[in-house]
């Protein structure tokens, strides 16, 4: 990468009357290769008018004045303007003529000079701190690890060198823990004396001590300086623990599913931001030529930064998981070992790779019912859309990646026509992504016919892709109870606003034949609002299930998309999650309001 600047911002103040030749500051460059020698050149980012005022020593990097600064020079700088200069650094081979070149596209740093329209403070009015240390700039040196010793900063305030001629100023550096830094007494430069290792310490907290001796007094002034160590890819990846994961794929076999986790550590940093420009780039390769494996599996790699326990040095943790590229069929079964090569591509050494092993067992899924037969009870008074019960093949709740469809069949195909018509009483439905079937009353009139006694169905479950089927007997017991005069017309329970009306009505989906009233107890807008429901077990429950979505009047409390008037909170997609007082719904609108609402019509106030 070549020479680099430990510090890419310098700031200093210049005054009227500072003479030509006066030193302002010194910039430094660090070596990347031992053979390099930095040469410093001035270039301009803007305001090039001042190019002739300054001189930069090509070897030492000391910036000094080419002319004495007069009062008139400060008129053009209307306010505390700063002059931006940059110093490209180059290896000897590339000789760059010092001309009005622009800083564009150069390995440049920025110098900001504040023009102060006043003369340089004399010794009596310069305090020790000003004398001792450069302008309090705030950029801390950043040194690359594993590089060469060298000067990183001029400690002396060059603009104040001649302000107090009879003072002698010397510097020393201290730190709580041993740190490879020292001061070059002749040049008063802070020097790093040995290559650094970021994995050992990311930052050195130094204490710079300036000793000012006059004939009678010795004054020590201290300031702290943080020197940061930049990382490079000098550590190979390693496994801390196991490099093998045993994975069993059974019920959940959906595309995108991820299984098992293997960790690979790297003591270097891996920046998330501007990932392409960063170092420590990892590449993974799935070592398999088996087409089935390549079309079925992939490995997903993610990484995060972690701080080690002692010292809190940052390092990287890479996580690798097996991922399904497609959903597996229920009958696919296989056992395999999958090797994955992790390669730290930017690690120069030889051992920059780690091999991970995923032992994978794909089990088939047997679609079957847990029982041979299942019983359900429904009252003959149940309304149409009343929910009878739920059927589900074994482990259906854990299935993912394939779909099961359910259908009802009449066991005795050549039963009489009358008997056949009884079987229209119950039907089955299913939500698009659900793995279970919902039994519901499809024909309430058939339910009530005396000749329709206990109903026996066969429920068939079929796996969509393999067409694998399984079936089970279901026995629906019709609970007699006192039958009522037949009313073909079912209203929506939700329209009723009072307990009396509610419990006297036969509403759509009412499992007992009558709507059920829920009395809210809380003040204000609450999830347990008062309402009239076909079946308080499933409505309202903030979920518009497969039966409820067949007709908006069954359970608008869960399913409505229409406006809701009055204090309420909407459910995530639709329905009423919370309401004020009593919530009731007509086909076009729902209301939530306090219960004691008498019917008041416009009478006298309309006169």
């Amino acid at each position, binding site marked *: 990468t070549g020479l680099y600047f430990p510090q890419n911002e310098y700031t200093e103040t210049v005054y009227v009357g500072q003479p030509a030749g006066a030193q302002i500051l010194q910039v430094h460059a660090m070596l990347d290769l031992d053979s390099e020698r930095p040469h410093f050149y001035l270039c301009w980012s803007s305001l090039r008018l001042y190019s002739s005022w300054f001189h930069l020593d090509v070897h030492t990097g000391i910036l000094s004045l080419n002319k004495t600064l007069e009062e008139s020079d400060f008129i053009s700088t209307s306010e505390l303007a700063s002059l931006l200069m940059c110093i490209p650094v180059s290896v000897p081979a590339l000789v760059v003529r010092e001309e009005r070149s622009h800083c*564009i596209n150069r390995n440049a740093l920025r110098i900001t000079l504040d023009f102060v329209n006043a003369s340089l403070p004399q010794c009596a009015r310069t305090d020790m701190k000003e004398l001792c240390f450069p302008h309090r700039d*705030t950029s801390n040196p950043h040194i690359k690890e594993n590089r060469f010793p060298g000067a990183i900063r001029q400690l002396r305030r060059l603009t104040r060198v001649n302000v107090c001629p009879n003072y002698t100023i010397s510097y020393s550096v201290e730190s709580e823990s041993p740190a490879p830094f020292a001061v070059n007494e002749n040049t008063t430069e802070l020097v790093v004396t040995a290559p650094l290792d970021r994995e050992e310490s990311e930052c050195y907290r130094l204490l710079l001590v300036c000793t000012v001796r006059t004939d009678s007094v010795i004054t020590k002034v201290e300031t702290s300086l943080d020197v940061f160590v930049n990382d490079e890819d000098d550590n190979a990846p390693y496994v801390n623990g196991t490099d093998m994961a045993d994975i069993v794929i059974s019920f959940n076999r959906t595309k995108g599913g991820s299984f098992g986790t293997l960790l690979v550590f790297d003591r270097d940093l891996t920046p998330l931001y501007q990932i392409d420009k960063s170092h420590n780039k990892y590449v993974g390769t799935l070592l398999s030529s088996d087409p089935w494996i390549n079309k079925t599996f992939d490995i997903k790699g993610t990484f995060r930064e972690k701080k080690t326990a002692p010292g809190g040095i940052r390092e990287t943790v890479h996580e690798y998981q097996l991922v399904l590229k497609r959903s597996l069929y229920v009958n696919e079964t296989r056992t395999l070992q999958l090797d994955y090569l992790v390669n730290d591509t930017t690690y120069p050494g030889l051992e920059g790779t780690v091999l991970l092993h995923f032992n994978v067992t794909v089990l088939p899924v047997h679609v079957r019912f847990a029982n041979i037969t299942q019983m359900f009870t429904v009252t003959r008074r149940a309304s149409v859309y009343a929910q009878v019960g739920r059927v589900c093949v074994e482990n259906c709740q854990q299935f993912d990646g394939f779909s099961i469809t359910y259908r009802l069949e009449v066991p005795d195909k050549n039963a009489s026509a009358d008997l056949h018509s009884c079987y229209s009483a119950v039907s089955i439905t299913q939500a698009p992504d659900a793995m279970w079937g919902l039994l519901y009353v499809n024909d309430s009139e058939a339910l009530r016919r005396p000749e329709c006694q206990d109903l026996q169905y066969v429920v068939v479950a079929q796996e969509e892709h393999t067409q694998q089927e399984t079936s089970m007997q279901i026995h629906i017991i019709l609970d007699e109870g006192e039958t009522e005069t037949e009313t073909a017309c079912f209203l929506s329970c939700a329209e009723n606003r009072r307990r009396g009306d509610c419990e006297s009505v036969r509403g759509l989906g009412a499992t007992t034949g009558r709507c059920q009233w829920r009395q809210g107890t809380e003040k204000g807008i609450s999830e347990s609002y008062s309402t009239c429901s076909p079946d308080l077990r499933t409505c309202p429950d903030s979920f518009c299930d497969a039966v409820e979505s067949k007709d908006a009047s069954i359970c608008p409390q869960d399913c409505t998309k229409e406006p809701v008037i009055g204090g309420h909170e909407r459910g995530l997609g639709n329905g009423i999650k919370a309401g004020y007082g009593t919530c009731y719904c007509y086909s076009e609108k729902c209301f939530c309001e306090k219960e004691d609402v008498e019917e008041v019509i416009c009478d006298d106030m309309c006169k």
Partner: protein
Amino acid sequence: DSELGPPGWREPLDCVRASELCNQNSQCSSRYRIMRQCLSGGDKERSAMLASKECQGALEVLQDSPLYDCRCKRGMKKELQCLQNYWSIHMGLTEGEEFYETSPYEPIHFSEEYRHASIISDSSLSKMSPCSEAGKPCNPCLDAAKACNLNETCKRLRSAYNSICSKATPPQPSLANQEPCSRKRCQKALRQFFERVSWELSYPLLFCSCPDQACAERRRRTIVPSCSHQERHKPSCLELRHTCRSDALCRSRLADFHMNCQMTPHTVTSCPHDNYHGCLMSYVGLIGSDVTPNYSDSSPSNITISLWCTCRGTGNQERECDAFHRDFTHNTCLKNAIQSFGYGSEGGTLLVTEPSSTFLPPAQPPIISKPAPSLHGNAVKPMDSACMFSTCANLQDGGQKCIPSDEYECEEALLAQGSIDSQ
């Protein structure tokens, strides 16, 4: 061509007018066209192109054109075009990404009307606010909501951004990590609110002073942060800055915030030219952009502002990342400006002169303001300590350690201040 005179000595034009003038001048317009081509490529091609002879030549000419120091006005007609013109030349003038960029907006002058109004708004608010009635719970943020609700424009635009920002997007299983709301529409509605509603009504909603946590939580929720500020994946702060700087409006608002809210040692308030209103105005200018700041908690007294981003995983750039984020989280100028608005600029504002941190980026290095020590100390007399945060502490034990240091104010900074005022 008086308007094409040398830079620095002519009245700066707005960049729409400046580019019109440039296009009327054959020499200028051809160079301007070249410059736009130089800047058209991505980052990599751009720096290579800019080093070419033609681009250098174009740059030289454009530095003498009105485009060089043109500026834009907030809320002006064709504001976005003005800002695009500004960056179309200034991206060429700076090499690489500067930490602080010069704001394209004209400097905000401390409006007497603001100082006067902020006293009135405090007193008029206090008349309306329950705070003046003894015994009644005091919630200036609630009073601000009341003042807004009683103003047609404010109420309408507040309801507009609110209904957009609070509307949860229905979950779609197909979208992997779908955002909880339509963030872009929400941010646009927020920008419209702050652009069209007068600051006397919008600022109190944002900068009301809070005696308790409920009030502070109301203040925090003013911009519906769950939609406008937060997002499901927390990006790196440098990534946030990069996204912002690839949009002319956001880049301008960020530069403006840095220009007007950047802590400076040369003033008591830590704000440039002691201009609180300028800082607040540029802070509000960020709301609804990619870099939307917000209160990070609902503590009534200790105001902490942050962006929705992290500096974890930024490798060697962690310091720069921290420095960028600390301009929001540890900004004494911003804190003072908010408190001064909330408690009334004449109120007993507790000027926070918290020390700046060592890793603040350069430009105007902040110095801790403390009485300059006497010269004739004898032997070693460590100065009384001021607190200094440092990322070394961050790195070593993951926490912000307060390290005593003995930095103190540069004498010439006082002189410098003196020299500025005398002009």
